């Protein structure tokens, strides 16, 4: 590691910004849908509790959106500041989805402003509900477009290279690279899943703190059901992603699974420590990698040894892959148990230990998001544009990146602490019992 090398430092700063931004971005994509569902259920069932749920989520959502917007602006500009040579080249091919992302963001920003500042302004809650559709659509669309940009970096297409320049560019072909379907679907499903489990964490936490109101029970049951649906979707799409990798980016899959020799009946490796080319203390599941890669236990899976050594991703991405998959599996199983038990009326889900496990769900999902993104990004090392440009060729030549790392790290610490402090203060000062009572009073006042 060379701490003088702008390319290395640029990687660190990009990692820092994206890792921080992705937490807020995930919430930003997932929570609008949850708010929308809660409001819809509230209107359908004529149950004021769900409407209040939507309203309280929306209030906290503003805080996370604010940080998401400013860190998103930071990464948007950092792309050009830290990777000018890359942007100069790739900008010719991939500007379109980047541009469309801004429009989606614009659309969302406008309607979010309107949605937040028109509570009770319309007599009919259904009208207000309509405002949420563009918010949720805009949020989802911007994640789609930005994931398309990332998919392009993993699997570039839609251009030809002539004397180091990209010619015969086809913007649409570049947008729809083979990596797009699995990536976009996975990003969306995990964002929805993570948001659902985060909101479930909050409800469970309030119940652990002694709040017995029916409101929290409704919130918990709704979010766990949604969490289960999206966890199953995530697992299915994860399987498709494995097949995509086997087909188009075999070196990433091979590095993730420490699969060195190309061969049939490949085994899946869980956990373990690498000793040379031998995985020690690992759980090895025969045939599973072949099944993951090609849905057939006897097919051949390409091994890492097929690739020149300077084009292999680092082998530690195996741990990231394990972390992501284990958490995903756990959350799917856990929410399944909860939902079944809730239907059957089994009491253990109200036990303290079970509630604490529910509280852990949200943070675990966020860890899985981080692990998944690190896996996908480190897994395409050494390329910034796979097959075309290496990371070291894309970076800035500026000598001041180290200073900027310190500045931005400070900023993210402040923003992170700020979010936690503001959010907890906001809800602690105005617990749901108090707000419900205030609403009752206000209604009573009108009738007199």
């Amino acid at each position: 590691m060379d701490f003088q090398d702008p390319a290395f430092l640029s990687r660190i700063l990009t990692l820092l910004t994206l890792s921080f931004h992705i937490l807020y971005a995930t919430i930003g994509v997932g929570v609008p849908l949850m708010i929308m569902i809660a409001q819809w259920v509230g209107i359908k069932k004529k149950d004021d509790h769900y409407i209040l749920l939507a309203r309280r989520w929306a209030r906290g959502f503003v805080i996370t959106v604010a940080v998401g917007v400013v860190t998103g602006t930071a990464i948007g500009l950092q792309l050009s500041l830290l990777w000018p040579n890359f942007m100069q080249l790739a900008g010719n091919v991939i500007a379109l989805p980047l541009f469309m992302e801004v429009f989606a963001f614009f659309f969302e920003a406008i309607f979010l402003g309107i949605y937040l500042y028109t509570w009770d302004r319309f007599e009919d809650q259904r009208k207000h509900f309509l405002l949420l559709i563009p918010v949720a659509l805009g949020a989802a669309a911007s994640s789609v477009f930005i994931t398309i940009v990332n998919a392009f970096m993993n699997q570039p297409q839609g251009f030809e290279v002539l004397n180091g320049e990209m010619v015969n560019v086809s913007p649409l072909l570049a947008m729809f690279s083979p990596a797009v379907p699995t990536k976009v679907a996975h990003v969306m499903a995990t964002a929805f899943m993570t948001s659902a489990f985060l909101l479930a964490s909050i409800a469970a936490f309030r119940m652990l703190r002694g709040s017995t109101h029916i409101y929290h029970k409704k919130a918990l049951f709704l979010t766990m059901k949604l969490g289960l649906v999206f966890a199953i979707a995530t697992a299915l799409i994860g399987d498709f992603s494995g097949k995509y990798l086997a087909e188009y980016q075999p070196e990433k899959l091979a590095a993730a699974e420490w699969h060195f020799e190309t061969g049939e009946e490949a085994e899946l490796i869980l956990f373990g420590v690498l000793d040379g080319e031998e995985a020690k203390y690992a759980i090895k599941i025969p045939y599973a990698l072949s099944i993951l890669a090609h849905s057939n236990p006897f097919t051949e899976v390409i091994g890492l040894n097929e690739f020149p050594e300077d084009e292999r991703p680092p082998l530690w991405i195996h741990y990231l892959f394990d972390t992501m998959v284990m958490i995903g599996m756990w959350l799917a199983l856990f929410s399944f148990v909860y939902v079944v038990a809730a239907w059957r009326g089994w009491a253990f889900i109200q036990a303290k230990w079970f509630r604490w496990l529910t509280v852990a769900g949200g943070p675990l999902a966020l860890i899985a998001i981080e692990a998944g993104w690190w896996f996908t990004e480190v897994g395409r090392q050494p390329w910034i544009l796979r097959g075309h440009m290496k990371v070291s060729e894309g970076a800035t030549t500026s000598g001041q990146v180290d200073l900027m790392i310190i500045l931005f790290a400070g900023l993210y610490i402040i923003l992170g602490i700020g979010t936690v402090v503001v959010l907890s203060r906001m809800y602690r000062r105005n617990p749901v019992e108090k707000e419900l009572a205030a609403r009752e009073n206000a209604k009573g006042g009108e009738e007199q």
Partner: protein
Amino acid sequence: MTLEIIGISVLWLFLFLYVIVASIDFGAGFFNAYSSFIGKQHILTGIIQRYLSPVWEVTNVFFVFFFVGIIGFFPQTAFYYGTTLLVPASLALILLAIRGSYYAFATYGAKINHRGYIYMYGLSGLLLPAALSPVLAMSEGGFIKMDNGQPYLDYWTLFTSPLMWSIVVLSLTAVLYISAVFLTWYSSKAGDLKANELMRKYALIWAGPAIITATGIIYELRGHNPEHYARILDLWWVFALSFLLFAGTVYLIWKKRHYGWAFILLMGQFFTAFFAYGASHYPYLLYPYLTIYDSFTNESMAIALIIAFIAGLCLLLPSLYLLFRLFLFDKDYVEGKSDYHA
């Protein structure tokens, strides 16, 4: 009209819109802090928050739009400006981040009313234009130099240049002037006489410095970039028109009449000056390295971007209209009769 001209015009238009909405935002923060300092905060805070809350995020998007757009249409700019702007742009980003998140934290979440924060917020609004405006100076040439085929920014020349400092001063005075005129109008719509009186005073105070520094810059350019100066002289009539519009705004505010028109004339003043400045800069994006022609993206991407742009506008304009109707032209909301926030 060539694709290059369409591209740069679109971007210049969005930069113009950002300058206007961001000025209102930055200036409002400063006036809020200043009035808190002299003990008159209660007069302005309500008005300012009512305007800013639903739109601050939209303001931010105009900025994102500009820099994403310029990389899209002119990818070469990433190479020159990206490499050289690391420090000033990062500083601006950090200020922007603190400002944006603080605003949401304070007005929405914690309802902080601590004076220290209000001052910091106000000050950051002045530092931001100061951090962003050197880019305009850099585009005039002489500050970005080449070393082994890699551009770098000559900080010493930049910080000792009268041109750079004139642009910084202009951006500050313009921010305060634009913001004051807008808030004069907004407070008069709200029927808030006290706020209106205060903002009218600020508008008149900042009108003079704004126009003096703007003229000063043209003079600075004569020495710094004679080619650009000559082109400005060719367009003298547009700048003269801009000055007339400026005089119109000041007259109406002085006479306490038609504040809405005063603001429209102000928009006209800045629009003409901004576009005349941009046109006189033509064809350079970065003098003398980069023109809009040699940095332009390939044709198929340019067409795709313009189509996306038109489609985007079809979505955007009605939405913006709705936003303005609800928060700018709605009497009950502007007067603060009801607070509908979640």
